[in-house]
C-alpha cells in the first residue's frame, strides 16, 4: 500500500501526458444537412403529445426558445399537449428524461442536448419505437437517434463574428477569445471557426482562448487577469453577448476600453444595450425562433412528409447603427430580442 498509489499516480500522469488531443472540430457538412429523410414510418394521426427533453432550462435563451415552441404549438390544434423535462446540465438525467418521455407515450421529441453524443442511445430507443426526434438549437447532429435538426450553425456564426471582428480591426492585431463552457458544441464550433478564419489573417494573433461558462462575472474576472498578463489587447472575440458585457466592463474598469475592438455579440438584450450606449460591437443573431421552426419540422415528420436532415435558421449581422430596432431598453439585460408576440414573452 506504500508503493502502489504513487506508481499508479505516475502511470496516470504518463497516460494523460502521452495521449495527444487529436480530435479536431468538425464543420457542419453540407451534404449531410441537405440529405433528405423519409419519414413515412413516423406518420401518425393527431392528436399529438409533444415531448421536450431540455438539457437545461435555467438560461434565458433557452427560456425564449421554449416559449417559441409553446407559441408555435398553440397555433396547431393537432398538438394536444406539451411535456417538458429539464436535465439541469446532467446528460445522465437527460437520458433518464428521454426514457420517461417514452414511458409517457409522446409522439414527438424535441430536444437540446447537454452532450449530443451521450444521449444518442436514448434517442435511438425513441426512434426505434417510432417516435421522431428533432434536435433544436445550436448544433447539428447526424446519427440514427436524430431524425432531423432545426439549428443555428455555430460554425457559420463563429465565422461571421470572427470576420466582422477582423474587419473592424482592419485585419491586424492581438485578440483574446471568450468562449462558453469548455467542451460544449458552442465552444468547440466557435473556436474551430475562429481558428479557421484566423488562417486567412496572418496579422491576427490569438493570445488566449478562455472559457467563461456563459457567466458574466466569470468572464469579467478572467478578463481582469488577461489584462494583467497582456499589456496590449486589440480585439475580443466573444459571440455570446452576456459574456461580452463582463469582458467589456473589465476593459472599461482598467481604462483600456478604447484600445480594444469588441466583436459582435448576439441579440442578448444587455449586450444590445451596451452596443446602443457605445455605438460599437454590433450583433450576430442567435435566433430564439429556432424553437418554432423545430415544432413545424416535427409536425411535417408526423405527417409523413419527407424533410431535409438539417433545417438551418440563419444568423444575421446587425450593425451598431441599426441596433435600435432590436434593443428593448426597458427590459432586463437577461432577455432576448425576439419575434414572439408580447403575450408569449416570458413573464
Amino acid at each position, binding site marked *: 500500500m506504500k508503493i502502489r*498509489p504513487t506508481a499508479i499516480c505516475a502511470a496516470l500522469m504518463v497516460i494523460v501526458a502521452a495521449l495527444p488531443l487529436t*480530435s479536431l472540430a468538425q464543420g457542419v457538412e453540407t451534404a449531410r444537412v441537405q440529405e433528405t429523410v423519409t419519414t413515412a414510418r413516423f406518420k401518425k394521426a393527431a392528436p399529438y403529445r409533444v415531448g421536450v427533453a431540455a438539457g437545461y432550462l435555467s438560461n434565458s435563451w433557452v427560456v425564449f426558445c421554449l416559449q417559441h415552441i409553446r407559441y408555435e404549438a398553440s397555433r396547431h390544434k393537432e398538438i394536444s399537449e406539451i411535456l417538458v423535462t429539464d436535465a439541469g446540465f446532467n446528460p445522465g438525467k437527460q437520458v433518464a428524461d428521454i426514457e420517461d418521455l417514452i414511458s409517457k407515450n409522446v409522439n414527438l421529441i424535441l430536444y437540446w442536448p447537454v452532450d449530443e453524443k451521450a444521449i444518442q*442511445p436514448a434517442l435511438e430507443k425513441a426512434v426505434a419505437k417510432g417516435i421522431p426526434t428533432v434536435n433544436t438549437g445550436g448544433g447539428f447532429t447526424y446519427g440514427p437517434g436524430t431524425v432531423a435538426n432545426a439549428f443555428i450553425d455555430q460554425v457559420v456564426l463563429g465565422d461571421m463574428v470572427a470576420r466582422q471582428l477582423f474587419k473592424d480591426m482592419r485585419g491586424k492585431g492581438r485578440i483574446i477569445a471568450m468562449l462558453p463552457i469548455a*467542451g460544449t458544441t458552442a*465552444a468547440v464550433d466557435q473556436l474551430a471557426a475562429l481558428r479557421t478564419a484566423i488562417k486567412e489573417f496572418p496579422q491576427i494573433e490569438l493570445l488566449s482562448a478562455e472559457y467563461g461558462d456563459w457567466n458574466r462575472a466569470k468572464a469579467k474576472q478572467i478578463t481582469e487577469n488577461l489584462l494583467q498578463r497582456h499589456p496590449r489587447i486589440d480585439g475580443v472575440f466573444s459571440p455570446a453577448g452576456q459574456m461580452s458585457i463582463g469582458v467589456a466592463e473589465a476593459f472599461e474598469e482598467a481604462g483600456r476600453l478604447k484600445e480594444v475592438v469588441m466583436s459582435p455579440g448576439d441579440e442578448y438584450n444587455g449586450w444590445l444595450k451596451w452596443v446602443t450606449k457605445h455605438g460599437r460591437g454590433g450583433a450576430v443573431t442567435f435566433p430564439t425562433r429556432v424553437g418554432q421552426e423545430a415544432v413545424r419540422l416535427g409536425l411535417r415528420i408526423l405527417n409523413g412528409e419527407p424533410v431535409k436532415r438539417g433545417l438551418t435558421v440563419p444568423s444575421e449581422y446587425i450593425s451598431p447603427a441599426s441596433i435600435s430596432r432590436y434593443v428593448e431598453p426597458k427590459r432586463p439585460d437577461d432577455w432576448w430580442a425576439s419575434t414572439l408576440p408580447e403575450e408569449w414573452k416570458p413573464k
Partner: protein
Amino acid sequence: MPVVSRSMRLTDRGIYWVLAAALAAAGLIPEFRSLGNLANVATQSAALAVLAVGQTFVILCGLIDLSVGQLTGLIVVLVCDVAAGRDAMMAPALLLAIGLGAGSGAVTGLLNNRLRIHPLILTFGTMSVLQGIVFTYTDRSVGRAPAAIAWLADGRLLGLPVAPLLVLVLAAGAHVTLTRTRFGMHVRAVGGGRDNARRAGIDTDRVAATVFVISGVSAAIGGLLVAGRLGVGYPHAGAGFELDAIVAVVLGGTSLAGGRGSVAGTVAAVLLLGLTNNVLNLLQISSFIQMLVKGLIVIGAILVNQPGGRRAFA
C-alpha cells in the same frame, strides 16, 4: 447462549418508511406501475447507487470523499477513449478503470494519513485536480463505450435489467463486508472513535486508506455504468455525483460523524431519489418546481431520519 443481533433503532428505519410511503404514493400513477418504468428507475439509479455504497464506507469511517464525482468523469472519458467502441478493448478498459479508481483512492488515502488535513478540504482539492486532469485530457466527448459495457449499464439478463442486479450484488457484498468482516467492524470502530480504535490496536491509517480505495473503486464501477449509459466519454459526466452520493448516504441513516449506518439504508435512499425524479417527471411537474420539491424532500427526509445530529458532522 443466545446470539443477539444488533438491535435496530427506530431512527435507523426512517428511510424505509419514507421510501415505502413514496412507493405507495407513486403507485397511484398508472404509468409508474408499468414494469418497464420500474426497471428504468432502477437502471437510472444504478451508477449513483454504486457510488453511494462506496461513500457509505468512507462516511462510516468518519471521513468524506468529494473527489468521486470527478474521478467518475475521468474514468468515463478514459474508458470510452481507450475502448473506442471495440469490445476487444473491454478487458484493458476494465483494468484501467478499476486500477485508476483504486490508485486514485490510494493516493487520497495516503494524503489523508500523511497530511492530516480535514478530508473535506483534502478531497475538495483532489476533486479540483481530477477535474483539471479530465479537461486537460479532453474538453469534449470522446470515444465510445464498447457494447459490453453498454450492456452492463443498460442491458437485460434473463429479462431483468443488468445494472440493478449488479448493484444488488455489490450492495450485498458491501453489507456483508461491513457487518461480517473484521475490516468492516474496524471501519465502524474508526468512525466511532479514531483514537479509541487505535488504542484497541487497529491500524487506523490502513483502514482509512482502504475505505478511500473502496470509494475509488466504486467510482470506477459507477464510471463504467455511466459510460455504458451515455455511450461516450463526456467530460462533465461525473459533476455533482459526489454530493448526490453523500446526500444518499446520509438520507440512508448513516451518520456523518461516522460509526453508525448501513448499506441498505443508502440503497433505499438512492431509490427514493430516483423515484422522486421519475414521479415528478411522470406528473409533468415543471422542472423548477421539481427542484423545489427535491430540496424539500431532502429536508424532510433528514428531519425524519437524523435526529440527534447537532454538529456539522453528526
